[in-house]
């Protein structure tokens, strides 16, 4: 494990004083990820996340990927698609409203990203999935987040959704064939 230095100034005063350099780096990246989870609908951009983490954009992207295995942009897109899946399931909001509500600024990008990840268009998704039981939002956000991006088109749908009906899954399978 190589250690990526984090400028002292970015260490939060609330952090444990016992953190090693790697752990301090993790906490800084976790704080950026928590910001994405909390404020996904805002026009977040990587340069401003990097600035709040106290490092250059390139360093931020590389470090985030070292810690979480994917770039911050990709993480944010998955978070936004997960929230879109939630809104499509749980509300009657139009696809356009959902698109903007979760932070996309173009319907085209939203539809393309949504389909890359879920292999379904937003409208198809809505017709196949139903509201889930009440669990803490953080729990749903962690577990319903699609685990794939793009590569889903090469295999099974990668998101997990316990509300998928048997017929819905069967249809998705037929659609793939």
């Amino acid at each position, binding site marked *: *494990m190589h250690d990526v230095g984090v400028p002292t100034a970015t260490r*939060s*005063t*609330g*952090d*444990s*004083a*016992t*953190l*090693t350099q*790697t*752990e*301090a780096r*993790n*906490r800084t*990246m*976790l*704080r950026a*990820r*928590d910001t994405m*989870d*909390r404020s996904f609908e805002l026009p977040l951009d990587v340069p401003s996340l990097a600035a709040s983490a106290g490092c250059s954009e390139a360093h931020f992207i590389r470090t985030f990927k070292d*810690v*979480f295995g994917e770039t911050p942009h990709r993480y944010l897109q998955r978070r936004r698609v997960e929230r879109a899946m939630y809104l499509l399931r749980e509300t009657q909001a139009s696809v356009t409203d959902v698109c903007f509500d979760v932070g996309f600024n173009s319907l085209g990008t939203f539809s393309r990203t949504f389909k890359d990840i879920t292999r379904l268009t937003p409208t198809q998704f809505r017709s196949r999935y139903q509201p889930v039981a*009440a669990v*803490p*939002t*953080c*729990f749903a956000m*962690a577990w319903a987040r699609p685990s794939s991006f793009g590569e889903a088109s090469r295999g099974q749908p990668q998101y997990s959704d316990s509300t998928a009906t048997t017929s819905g899954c069967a249809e998705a399978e037929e659609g793939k064939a």
Partner: protein
Amino acid sequence: MITSISISHVWVFDQDEALDFYVGKLGLEVSADMEIGGAMRWLTVRPKGVTDREILLEKVAPPSVDPDAAAKIRELISKGASGFSVGFVTPDANALFQELKSKGVEITEEPTVQMYGTDFAVRDPFGNHIRLVQPAAGFAGA
């Protein structure tokens, strides 16, 4: 038949820092703090006045776990991979939020109205995820 939950567990990196956070900031009280034989410190906390349930604040360190495992566990917790650690109940989520915010607690989610109540989330100094909920009628803790 199991009738209740008595002890839950949270890994911490330093028990004094954990006390400062869980007692000094969150406002819990110490229910037991015993040093036994030098390395072992049994440290539990609980909400004030709650006598049938406590949280064990266990240090991630040898000899409880080997040095390599300790380093790995610490690294995972610091990147938020310890999952959902503890859920606390409060009669007033907004007031508690303001209090914890003023004490410098790291807030990860501001109070939000959910169907199960109003809740918000914080991290402890090590990266553990803690939720605080003001339950809606009919939900646990209400």
